[in-house]
């Protein structure tokens, strides 16, 4: 009989690998099997725009196919893709030819992780605190106002906030820059000017994310707190005459944190796909921006690299949460 903990880890890890493989395989084959040739359409649109000889165009397509290995049989391409992927090689990019895609991703990743992680965490912390207060004061005017506000705000897609934020805070009040990650006047590096510039440029994109996702957390935290307040052990705690603050922090907050940490972990997994729109709106030089740049020049490898990265992030975040949860919560003992 195997140790149940080891068994759980093995099972969970196997599912992780299988899901990863299925998802990547699906995306890869879909891109290569779909009818219609984006390459031809792409070059046609270039010809329409700039005018060119069709001979040059046919030649360009061939060069392109060769450079990206698209002229080989599909199965061979797929196997090359997998073996190179295992080596950590995602192939040459077109945007920064011949820089490999993994290098491009590595350069962009800090910006995305910095912006999205910080704003997701900020939204989480603020949402949890506000939600807990609202749930604690359930039924009061404060609760009603915040709940209605949260209900409305959490459902509006964040890009609308992004546009409105850029409009009012960026253009009208001229408080924050609306494009890029730092001012061109400062030298990148560890100096005060650079850091201030980065913070200034990050404020608007971060604000639009925080504003929308925060209220989602408020709603879930509020319902969590209210359902905990109905539990028997809470009435017992009150009957014991414990201080209000102690009931709030030790009995209510602590118990609500566990599901919220799980949700946060899963939410952090989605930062890559979440970065596409926000980085496009604010010209932020992260991974999402790389995707839209790659889209416009039909950079297959970079697009695939983006998909690999975001699928990997989502699944890994889920795996970490699943593996850590039994450690944090004594109630979820594996195999019990």
């Amino acid at each position: 009989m195997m140790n149940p903990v080891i068994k759980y880890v093995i099972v969970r890890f196997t599912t992780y690998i299988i899901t990863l493989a299925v998802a990547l395989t699906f995306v890869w084959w879909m891109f290569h099997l779909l009818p219609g040739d984006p390459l031809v359409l792409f070059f046609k649109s270039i010809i329409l725009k700039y005018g060119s000889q069709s001979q040059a165009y046919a030649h360009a397509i061939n060069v392109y196919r060769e450079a990206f290995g698209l002229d080989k049989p599909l199965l061979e391409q797929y196997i090359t893709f997998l073996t190179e992927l295992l080596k950590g090689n995602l192939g040459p990019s077109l945007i920064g030819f011949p820089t490999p895609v993994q290098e491009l991703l590595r350069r962009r990743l800090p910006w995305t992780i910095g912006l999205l992680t910080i704003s997701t965490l900020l939204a989480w912390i603020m949402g949890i605190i506000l939600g807990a207060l609202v749930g604690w004061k359930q039924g009061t005017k404060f609760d009603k106002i915040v709940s209605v506000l949260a209900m409305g705000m959490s459902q509006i897609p964040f890009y609308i906030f992004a546009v409105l934020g850029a409009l009012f805070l960026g253009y009208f009040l001229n408080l924050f820059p609306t494009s890029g990650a730092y001012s061109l006047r400062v030298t990148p590096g560890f100096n005060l000017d650079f850091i201030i510039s980065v913070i200034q440029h990050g404020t608007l994109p971060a604000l639009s994310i925080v504003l929308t996702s925060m209220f989602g957390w408020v709603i879930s935290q509020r319902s969590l707190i209210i359902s905990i307040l109905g539990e028997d052990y809470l009435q017992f705690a009150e009957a014991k005459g414990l201080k209000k603050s102690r009931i709030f922090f030790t009995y209510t907050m602590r118990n609500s944190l566990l599901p919220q940490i799980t949700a946060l972990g899963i939410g952090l997994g989605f930062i890559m796909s979440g970065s596409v729109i926000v980085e496009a709106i604010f010209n932020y030089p992260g991974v999402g921006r790389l995707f839209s740049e790659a889209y416009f020049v039909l950079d297959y490898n970079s697009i695939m690299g983006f998909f690999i990265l975001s699928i990997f992030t989502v699944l890994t975040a889920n795996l970490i949460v699943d593996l850590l949860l039994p450690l944090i919560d004594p109630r979820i003992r594996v195999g019990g």
Partner: protein
Amino acid sequence: MEAKRIKIKKILLYPFKVIISIARMNLKTKIGISLLAIFIAISLLEPAINYYRLNGKSPLEIGEHSGYLLPSYSLPLGTDPYGRDMFALLLMGTRYTLTIGFVAGIIDILIALTIGFLAGYKGGLVDHALRSITDALLVIPTWPLVIFLTLYLKQMDILSLSLIIGIFGWPGVTRLLRSQVLSVKERPYIELAKLSGENDLEVIFKEIAPNVLPYIGVGFAEAILAAMMIETGFRMLIGVGPINLVTLGYLVKLAISQGFLTTRLYAIIPPILFLVLIFVSLNLINIGLDEAYNPRLKKITGI
């Protein structure tokens, strides 16, 4: 014959009855449905209104007026850079956005119903296989995927766009429906129905489906919402796509890319307002339905 006709009539009237009964129950659903109904009415009347206002010309015709006109009595929102009537475009955009949402939403809910019911009801290996596929699709970022797939479209029109959005939007809804089917399936009356000789299809349609109906509604609203969000975000991202595919997202992007952001609020606020109101209305329906059929939630959210 007569009995059959009454039965058909009953079936046809059933959805209306459901809507009426829900609208009676719950303020949020009521507001949501009325708000959505206004926008659906705008979309349905749009061809007629624009026909009348523009004397039979298409709102898409370029150079009808000069570009960048300010609002006036006959042009309530002025004109866009191509000299098109912005008010006409706004109405048209509402119709296109809603159409994409509904077509994609219908595709989503049909796939989700099939897979969700099959997985939830059959259980075992079928469930396991279907769930693995759903989970694998769930981790692929839908938004970038749809954006990328547009590269394969020979021309981007409303139907092909709704199709590719719809084909990848179902995993989330499927999950929701599957879990509901699973919980209903265990109830005692299902066992009873099976024992009294109903076959699988009868059990699914007569016993399970009516009990899952509110969640089908929730899933449908969610699917529509997600489809419209994808389309809007996508138009705002890839920028000014085909200028004849006028959706609300396109109008926002058009206003931004023409530098209207600072100078012409009347060009950018209306499409954003319409979008927000449509999103809010669907969400109200969603929350309202959820609460109406989930009394525990009602106590919790109780606003």
